[in-house]
């Protein structure tokens, strides 16, 4: 009886050779691979046990400059920090831009003396003038010498229900802010003129802050969340590359009212104010350096102003507030 054994087609010695070679190759590759796994990043030794207390260093005393936060702090900073630097250089005063989070905060800070120079809309100016005795001393010129601006009432272009101002009743409305001039006060005046009151609308909302509130209103109408939107003119231009503007219909324009204003808090050193006013008024588009500053701030020029220039706005505000 012969035992049956299984034979490989190669002899056992050949097999052994092949197996040994295979193993060698395998381990060589594995070693090469493993060597590549080494941590080649530079390491810095650090001792986390040495601790120190951090105390917040108070900022040095300076004339504070604030831009009403209709946009985010970033935008506020980007638009105005060159202007602040210019003012500081031009006046020799230490100047610092500060960033209140809301319109209310802005007004409160003016009241607390934390904002020396306030760059705000006419409606807010009317408020801080009334509440805290702030006084306007300059106004800006936009575009091709426009010193006034207006608001718009918009809806979706394909909204079939809105044909006449009477059709606006019972609709949902969104505005920029309760203290917005172009985005609330001015177009609201138009609505009042059309005989519409707050109660005539199903809902009146304001865009959530901070920053970008004008755009948010357009977006809210564009998306169909609200039927009507109140915005200042030129806002749609900003959104030209983000949405299809044909989808938005401008129902009406408000009347023209004065534009944005520079106001000084009550109690600001008049000498400093004079220096600042002079520096601001000195800005000229023809000066390349000034042009850069102005373009950043989206102005074309700055003109002197007085509180009387805003009487119309003051009356408008009173009318809106009283008639609602």
């Amino acid at each position, binding site marked *: 009886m012969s035992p049956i054994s299984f034979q490989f087609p190669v002899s056992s010695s050949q097999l052994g050779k092949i197996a040994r070679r295979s193993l060698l190759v395998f381990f060589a590759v594995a070693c090469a691979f493993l060597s590549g796994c080494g941590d080649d990043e530079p390491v810095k030794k650090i001792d986390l*046990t040495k601790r120190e207390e951090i105390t917040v*260093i108070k900022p040095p005393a300076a004339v504070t400059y604030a831009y009403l936060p209709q946009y985010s702090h970033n935008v506020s900073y980007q638009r105005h920090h060159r202007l602040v630097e210019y003012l500081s250089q031009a006046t020799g005063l230490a100047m610092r831009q500060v960033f209140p989070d809301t319109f209310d905060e802005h007004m409160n800070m003016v009241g607390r003396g934390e904002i020396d120079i306030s760059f705000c809309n006419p409606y807010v100016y009317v408020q801080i003038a009334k509440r805290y005795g702030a006084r306007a001393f300059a106004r800006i010129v936009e575009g091709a010498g426009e010193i006034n601006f207006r608001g718009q009432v918009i809806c979706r272009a394909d909204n079939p229900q809105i044909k006449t101002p009477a059709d606006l009743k019972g609709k949902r409305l969104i505005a920029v802010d309760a203290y917005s001039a172009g985005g609330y006060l001015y177009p609201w005046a138009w609505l009042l003129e059309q005989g519409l009151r707050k109660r005539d609308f199903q809902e009146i909302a304001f865009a959530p802050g901070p920053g970008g509130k004008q755009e948010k209103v357009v977006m809210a109408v564009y998306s169909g969340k609200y039927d009507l939107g109140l915005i200042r003119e030129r806002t749609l231009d900003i959104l030209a590359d983000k949405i299809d503007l044909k989808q938005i219909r401008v129902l009406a324009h408000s009347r023209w009212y004065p534009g944005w204003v520079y106001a000084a808090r009550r109690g600001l050193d008049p000498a400093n104010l004079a220096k600042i006013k002079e520096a601001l008024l000195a800005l000229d588009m023809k000066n390349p350096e000034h042009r850069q500053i102005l373009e950043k701030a989206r102005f074309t020029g700055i003109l002197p102003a007085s509180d009387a220039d805003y009487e119309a706005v003051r009356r408008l505000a009173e009318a809106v507030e009283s008639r609602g």
Partner: protein
Amino acid sequence: MQIFAKLSFRGKINLGIVTVILIFGMVLYLVVSRVAATAMTGEIKKRGMNLSVNLAGRATNSILAMDFLRLKNMADEVVESSDDIAYAFIQDVRGQVLSHTFKSGFPSELKDANPISPDASSKIQLLDTDDEMIYDFALPVKVGDNRLGTVHVGLSRAKAEAAVRRLLLTIFGVSAGVGLVALAMGTLFASTVTRRLDVLRQSADEMIKGNLDLHVSPLLKRNCWDIRECQNEACPAYADTRRRCWNLPGTLCPDCREGNGADKLAACKECLVHQLNAGDEIQSLAESFDVMALTLDAHIRELKAAEKSLVRQQQLLRTILDVNPDLVSLQDENLVFQAVNPAFSQFMGLPESEILGQTKVPVCTSDQARENEADNLQILQSGGHQSKEVLVHKNGEKRWFHLVKVPVYDGDRITGILTAARDITEIKQYQEKLIQSMKMEQLGKLAGGVAHEINTPLCVILGYAQMLLEDIPQDTESYEFLQLIEKQAQICRRIVGDLLSFSRHIESRMAEMDLNQSVTEVLDLVRHTFKQNWIEIVPSLVSDLPAIVGDKEKLQQVWLNLLNNAADSIGQDGVIRVSTGIDPQSNRVQVRVADNGSGIAPENLKKIFDPFFTTKAPGGGTGLGLSVSFGIIQDHLGSITASSPAPRELPAAAEEGQDSQRPGAEFLVELPVSREKSVTDTFSELPSAEMQAVDQKTA
């Protein structure tokens, strides 16, 4: 590798599987650890960057607003979002830490651990805190081109490493699990293979032991006749549960092809039966094995039957050859002996093994060998038969053989010569005897005729000679001459008489007679004459012999012939013993005439009864006496034999001091008591080796 070769099949499969899985696991481990580490590091960096970018983006407003609470909240939110984030802190543009997530004080070394250059968009630094490795992500907080400060997020690598370890552990576990499952499955599969292989091996062992009644392949649930609903009992596959129909030749399904070759198998592969019942390679091997065992069994049975019949035939042939007294031999085409029978080897005096392979037999002379070879070659060339008689001398003995040579054909080709040699020595002797007796008979007739013709003129010569003798005086010369003529004429007359009695069968006068009396009368007649030569006759006659039927005169002539021959053989001084008796077995009366004469030479013993054979000098005898006696005894249905030397119980000769050196001779005559022919006397007259004869004859 020796160990590997000795491993069982299952062991090899398991070893192979485990090796493959180990290598696979190892490669997977290495690759995955490498890839995972890279991926995890990349992921950490991406995540850290995301967190940093996010924090930097969100911190802008708070930095501008100097809202430390919100900065603190933001940093805390980042750290709380995941437990592998070690810390987060925010510096202003001067490096002053605005907010951080450390509980008690800020690590002073951390402030400058990962400084970022003004134009860099980000920077990642690996920090070793002794406890753990931390990636520090530094990102500038920028508004436009203006830098407001820096955010730092510290991401622990430990968690990522732990994740990688968990992944590797999972791979290891899965590999081990897969290995175990593969091992189990491998064992299962291998055992299904090895179990069946084992059955095959055991079957092979059984086959080696000679047990061909094997059944390795499994029984089918549905056989071909079930599937095809076939009732054809003539089909070889029908009711055969052990073999598959596609392995059988001559199946009778309409789809089946002839034969058992590749064509049939190819056709079978299309068949439903094959598709349903064909198994894997091992099953097909087992099925082939079964077919092989069955076929082998059938072949072996056939072979055994054939072998038995062959052996029987061989035994028969062997017996025929062994028993055959003829010398039989078979030579191939080169005249080499291929087979011889025992009679042949016995005659050659050589064992069979020494003859086979030779081309010549030792008993032939060189001439005979040449002749034999020439004959053989002629037979091989011509294909004709040959039959002839040859004389062979062996040990001084001459033997006649009748040779028959025939060519042996294989198809059309002559492949050898069969030679049968029959010993015909005895037949040859009979032939010689027959020829001799025929010759003698013719001679007798001739002699009788001549004697008859001579007898008359001889009688005239004798008659006239005797008349003249009476007339002529006795003392004359003429008388002497006449006496001589008369004497010679008497001799002639005796010769003629012998010739006549030899040639002419005179009618016997058969009558009842007394044997002893006939013998006594003859003895009385010759006693006196023999006495003159000092020859003594010793009669020893048994009385009370039964009477026989015979011709008394003729029988007396026989006795006289025998007595004369004895006397002639003795010459002078001798004894003749004459005895009568009876052989109770053959119921024959016997007459013996023995002498102590010169005896008969052995070569003459056979010839003494031939007519005209004589050892006497010319004129001494005609050579017809014994021949005539032979004829007379034959007429009496008896026998006459001679032996020399004579049996040595001749008391008279011994007593009388005769020359005992002479061999002497004895003649024995046996005669039947009744006339009926006895059975035992058929060949008794034939000469045999022990027969002897006297060397002289009566005239």
